[in-house]
C-alpha cells in the first residue's frame, strides 16, 4: 500500500470535491475573460467566482487575486516586479530557492542589494533579527510564513507590522502556511504568494499572488488579456496586468473547490489533526537513539517534521521507506539556506501529512524508521 507523506510538496490524494470540480471544468468550461458567447461567459463567471472565494479566504479584493502557475511564479512576479525600483531587500535564513534565487540573481546583476535575517527559535529574537537588517533604502521584506524544511512558523504578523510602520513592502511566502494557518492580508502582508496545490488542495500548476495593491508590480511578461486590446501597452490594472495569456481555468476551478474543502473542514481542525500526527511521530522517533528529530521546544511549527538517521544519507532512508510504500521527501527540499541553518548539509527526511493521513499509517512509519535505524546501528 502506498501512503503519501510528501504533502508539503503537493497534497495527494485530492479531495473528491476537487476531483469532481476538475472533471466538470474540463467538460464544461473554455476560455475566460475573452469572448462574449455562452461558453466564454460561464467560464469567466467561474473564474471570477474562484477569485471571490480566494479573496474572501485571505481578506482581499477579488481583482487583486492573480492566478499563477505555482508559488514560485507568484514570488518571482513579486520580487522581480518590485526590483524595478532597486533598493535593498531582506529575506529570512529559511527561504526556499523560489525566493533566494531570484533575489540572488537580481543582486548579481547589481539591480538590488539584499541581506539575510537569521531566524531563531524564539519568535521575538527573529523579529529583532529582521529589524537589525532594515536600512533606510529597504524596499521589501520577503519572508516565508513557515519553513518547508522544519515547518517552523515565523512571526509573520510581527514582521508585517514592523514593515507597515516603515512603509516597507512585506511579501509573504505562504506555500506551507495557507490552508493550515489563518493567514490574512490584514496580518501586515502586502503581497501574499502561495501554491494552490499544497494546503489549498488544488491541482498542480496552480498558485496565486494576492495583493493589497499598495505596491504596484511590473509584469514579468506581456500579452493578451482580453482588455484594452487595441493598445500596445500592457494594462496597468489587476489582475490583467499580471495575467497574460489563457488562464488555467481547470486549475482555478480546483483551487476554488480546494479552498471550500478547507473551509468545510476548518483550518483549526486541520492544524490540530495534522499536528497530532507530527507529535506522534516525533514522540516515537525521539525514543530511537539513532534518529535526530529537527524540532525545538521553543518554536512553533506547521505540520511538517524532518528527521534523519545518524550515519545514513537522507536519500537512502527515504528509499528504504519507499520500498515499504511510504512516500517521504529527502534531500535539500530546494532550501539550502534552511539546511545550512539547521546544520543538515546532507539533507533530511521530511514527513508532511494532510487531511487524509491516518494515525495507523504514522505508527507503521515510526516502526519502519525504528527498524531501519536499528539495522543501521548493527552494521
Amino acid at each position: 500500500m502506498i501512503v503519501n507523506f510528501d504533502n508539503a510538496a503537493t497534497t495527494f490524494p485530492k479531495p473528491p470535491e476537487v476531483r469532481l470540480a476538475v472533471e466538470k471544468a474540463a467538460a464544461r468550461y473554455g476560455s475566460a475573460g475573452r469572448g462574449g458567447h455562452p461558453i466564454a461567459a460561464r467560464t469567466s463567471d467561474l473564474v471570477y467566482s474562484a477569485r471571490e472565494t480566494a479573496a474572501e479566504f485571505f481578506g482581499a479584493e477579488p481583482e487583486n487575486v492573480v492566478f499563477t502557475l505555482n508559488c514560485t511564479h507568484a514570488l518571482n512576479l513579486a520580487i522581480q516586479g518590485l526590483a524595478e525600483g532597486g533598493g535593498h531587500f531582506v529575506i529570512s535564513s529559511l527561504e526556499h530557492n523560489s525566493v533566494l534565487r531570484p533575489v540572488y540573481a537580481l543582486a548579481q546583476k547589481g539591480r538590488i542589494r539584499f541581506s539575510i535575517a537569521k531566524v531563531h527559535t524564539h519568535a521575538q529574537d527573529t523579529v529583532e533579527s529582521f529589524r537589525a537588517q532594515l536600512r533606510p533604502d529597504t524596499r521589501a521584506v520577503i519572508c516565508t510564513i513557515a519553513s518547508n524544511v522544519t515547518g517552523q512558523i515565523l512571526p509573520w504578523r510581527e514582521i508585517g507590522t514592523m514593515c507597515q510602520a516603515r512603509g516597507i513592502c512585506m511579501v509573504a511566502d505562504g506555500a506551507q502556511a495557507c490552508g493550515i494557518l489563518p493567514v490574512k492580508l490584514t496580518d501586515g502582508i502586502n503581497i501574499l504568494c502561495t501554491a494552490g496545490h499544497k494546503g489549498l488542495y488544488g491541482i498542480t500548476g496552480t498558485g496565486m499572488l494576492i495583493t493589497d495593491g499598495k505596491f504596484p508590480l511590473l509584469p514579468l511578461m506581456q500579452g493578451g488579456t482580453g482588455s484594452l486590446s487595441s493598445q500596445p501597452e500592457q494594462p496597468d490594472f489587476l489582475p490583467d496586468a499580471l495575467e497574460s495569456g489563457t488562464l488555467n481555468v481547470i486549475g482555478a476551478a480546483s483551487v476554488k473547490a480546494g479552498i471550500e474543502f478547507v473551509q468545510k473542514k476548518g483550518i483549526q481542525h486541520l492544524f490540530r489533526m495534522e499536528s497530532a500526527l507530527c507529535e506522534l511521530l516525533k514522540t516515537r522517533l525521539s525514543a530511537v537513539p539513532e534518529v535526530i528529530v529537527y524540532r525545538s521546544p521553543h518554536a512553533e511549527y506547521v505540520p511538517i517534521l524532518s528527521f534523519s538517521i545518524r550515519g545514513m544519507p537522507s536519500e537512502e532512508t527515504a528509499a528504504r521507506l519507499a520500498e515499504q510504500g511510504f512516500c517521504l521527501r529527502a534531500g535539500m527540499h530546494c532550501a539550502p539556506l534552511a539546511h545550512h541553518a539547521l546544520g543538515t548539509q546532507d539533507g533530511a527526511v521530511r514527513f508532511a501529512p494532510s487531511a487524509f493521513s491516518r494515525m495507523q499509517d504514522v505508527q507503521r512509519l515510526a516502526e519502519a524508521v525504528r527498524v531501519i535505524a536499528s539495522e543501521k546501528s548493527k552494521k
Partner: protein
Amino acid sequence: MICRAVMPSDTLARKAHRLLRARGFSAEIVRSSGTKEGCGFALRIMGDCNAARDLLERAGIPVRSMRNERDGS
C-alpha cells in the same frame, strides 16, 4: 432607460455586476467593441446611470465610460 457602462476588464465587470445585482439593479455583462481601446466588456444596466455611478464609485470600482441609452438601442 438603459445605462451602458464600459468596464476596464472582465473581472471588474463581474465585480460591478455582482454589486449591482445585490443592490436590486437589473444588469447584464455584454461585449464592448468599437471603442478606441479595443474589445472589452460593458454592463447594460436597466435604469439611469446616475444611481449606478454613485454605487460603483462608493465601492471603488473604476468605470471607463458611462452613458444613458434609450430602451432597445
